[in-house]
Every structure is written in structure tokens, then in C-alpha cells.
């Protein structure tokens, strides 16, 4: 951990002193993260690429303000998230909210109790899951990505989105519960049709 932090600090210092190759490696290392975030907000591919570029240009411009109080990836993710919000503001696109209560038991959650055998192994599952994730409110999808694909902690996700840890947890759990319910419904319908 210490070595990793030292390397990060060194990389930032090198970039600040004008080492552009170090910045190129920073872009390589973080473009997947930035793309994950931007992908959730921006449907148009061309806009997405432009926005990703804009994010890294902001990272470059503001890198001297990075104080190593968080991980560099968290800081970059926050810039990406805020850039997306600015983008939506400019385009006057709304950002969702969802209202599902939190205190249901697992039994209550399963209005659909059918458990199709080996649903994980279905060839269609992955595609269907992606479709269902896309249908979720943007922030839910983003939290799922950051947690499962970027392996960020609740705290780090909270820092990116500017939300308390408890809210992040709540959104993450809701997102997974919605996905679980919707996938089950989807498979149940498929079985009925078959």
C-alpha cells in the first residue's frame, strides 16, 4: 500500500514537472474507469469520447490541486462524474430518482418466487442483465459499476458521487434488489412462453 501510494505521488510529481509520458500512462490506467462512468450518462458514442477527453484534460489542468487525501482514481472518478453532471445540465437532460422502500425482508422482495434452474448459466443472461442495468436509474447503474467492476468501497463511491456512505449502500442494495426481481420476472415470463 505504501509503495503504491509513493508511486502515485511520484507519478503526479513527474506529471507536474512536465513529464507527458507519465500522463499518458495515467490516461491508459484510468480510461476504463472514466469510460465506465461516462458510459452510464451519455448514450451517444461521439459525445462519450469527447467527454472522456474533456475529463482527462481537466485532470491535467487541475492535477496540482490533488492533495493525496484520496486515491487518485477516486479523484479522477469524481471529476468524471461532475463532468457528466455538467454535460447533462448543458443538454438539459434529467437525472432520475427512484422510490423503493428499504425495509422489506427477502421474502417480501420475492413477489416472483420462481427460480429458474441455472439462470446464471443461460446464454441470454448476460445480455439481459446489461439491458436491465441500462433500465435502472443512472446513479444506481453507476454505483453497481463502481462497486463491482472498479471494486471501490462504499466510502470511495460516496466520495465520487458526493453522497454519504449510508446512501451509497442503500442505492447499491436497491439496485441489486431491482435487478434480481426483474431478472426473475424476465426468466419466469420466458418459461411461461416456452
Amino acid at each position: 500500500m505504501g509503495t503504491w501510494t509513493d508511486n502515485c505521488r511520484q507519478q503526479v510529481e513527474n506529471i507536474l514537472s512536465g513529464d507527458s509520458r507519465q500522463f499518458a500512462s495515467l490516461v491508459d490506467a484510468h480510461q476504463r474507469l472514466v469510460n465506465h462512468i461516462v458510459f452510464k450518462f451519455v448514450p451517444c458514442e461521439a459525445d462519450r469520447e469527447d467527454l472522456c477527453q474533456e475529463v482527462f484534460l481537466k485532470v491535467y489542468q487541475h492535477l496540482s490541486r490533488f492533495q493525496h487525501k484520496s486515491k487518485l482514481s477516486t479523484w479522477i472518478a469524481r471529476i468524471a462524474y461532475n463532468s457528466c453532471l455538467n454535460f447533462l445540465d448543458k443538454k438539459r437532460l434529467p437525472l432520475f430518482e427512484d422510490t423503493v422502500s428499504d425495509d422489506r425482508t427477502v421474502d417480501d422482495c420475492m413477489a416472483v418466487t420462481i427460480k429458474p434452474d441455472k439462470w446464471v448459466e443461460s446464454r441470454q443472461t448476460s445480455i439481459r442483465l446489461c439491458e436491465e442495468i441500462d433500465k435502472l436509474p443512472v446513479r444506481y447503474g453507476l454505483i453497481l459499476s463502481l462497486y463491482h467492476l472498479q471494486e471501490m468501497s462504499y466510502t470511495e463511491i460516496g466520495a465520487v458521487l458526493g453522497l454519504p456512505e449510508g446512501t451509497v449502500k442503500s442505492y447499491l442494495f436497491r439496485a441489486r434488489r431491482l435487478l434480481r426481481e426483474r431478472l426473475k420476472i424476465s426468466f419466469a415470463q420466458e418459461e411461461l412462453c416456452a
Partner: protein
Amino acid sequence: MRIGHMTDHELQGYLDQMKRDSWKMSDHLLVEKHLQVCSVCREAAEDYEDLGSMIEACPIPSLSPGFTNRVMSKLPRTNPASEYSYHWLVAVLSPIAAVITLLLRVDMQPLWGRAVALAFNQFYGLKLWLGTLSIPAFPSFPVSPDLGFLQSQLSLLTESSGTGVLISLVCVALLLFATIENLVPDRVNDRT
């Protein structure tokens, strides 16, 4: 051992803790015992574990090849560090300028005109703040270089009522705040 089902929140929280190795032994034993006897919660736990694996296997479209090169070609020619010094130069100079402006103008007006004077000061303070580095604007700025005059204004300020001083300080604080805010454009900050 608990009798009812676990809440969805409890179950997912437990599974996340297990996944990230941050579970407590006491909770672990309690939940494991419950899962052994409760098929509903066990099934839900299995579903969530499967769901997690499936999300992790989800494909995400990648950026087109050559993305890094395109970013690099758009970088400004200046180092990020030099831009940083410029911002901080503005940040340091602006409040100082605002303070000088206030010192030179506050209490030059009779009491009834103090509010107007303060507004006037703020206008000039803001003008100076916005154009700190635009040197040609300085000659037209009504600042006297006479140190004796500055001292007399200082003594006037300190001898004036507490309210006057307080208002002046609040104005300075506001200007300082505005300056710092201005340095954090596009909600970019290192806030964690």
C-alpha cells in the same frame, strides 16, 4: 438464532462484508446459522452472489483505439504546475487588494453614508479582484500611495464602532470566500 427472515439490507450487507473480508466473527456465525435453516434467505443469498458474478462479467464498450494519443495531442503547452501558481497568485493577491481597498475607503464617509461607501468599496474590491493582473487598470484606481494617509485610515477604522469593523471583516471574508470558490471551477476538488 433469529426467527424471522433477514431484511434484504441485512443480507446484502452481510454478503458485501464477506466479499471484502470485513465481516465480524459474531455476525458471521449468527448469519451462517440462520442461512443453514432458512431456505428463503439462503436462496436470496445465492441469487445475490450469482448476480454479483454476472455484473462483474458484464462487457463494457471500450474507447476507440488511439484514445490516449488523442488526449495527449490536446494537452495545453503549459505545465499544470505553472497554471497552479497563477491561480494561487490570484488567490493571494485578491484578498490583499480587497483589504487595502476597504482600509482606504471605510470611514471616509459620514455615518449615514457608510452603507453606500461599503457598497462602493465592494464594487472596487470586486473590480480589482477580477482584474488583479490587468495592470493597466491600476492607474485609474483611486488608491493613494501616501502611507500617512493609509495610517490615518487604519486608525480611523480601529477607532470606529465595533459594528463598522465587523462589517469590514465580513466583507473581507466574503471576498476571500468568493476568491476560493472561483478557484474550484466545474466542481473539481479533492474532497475526501
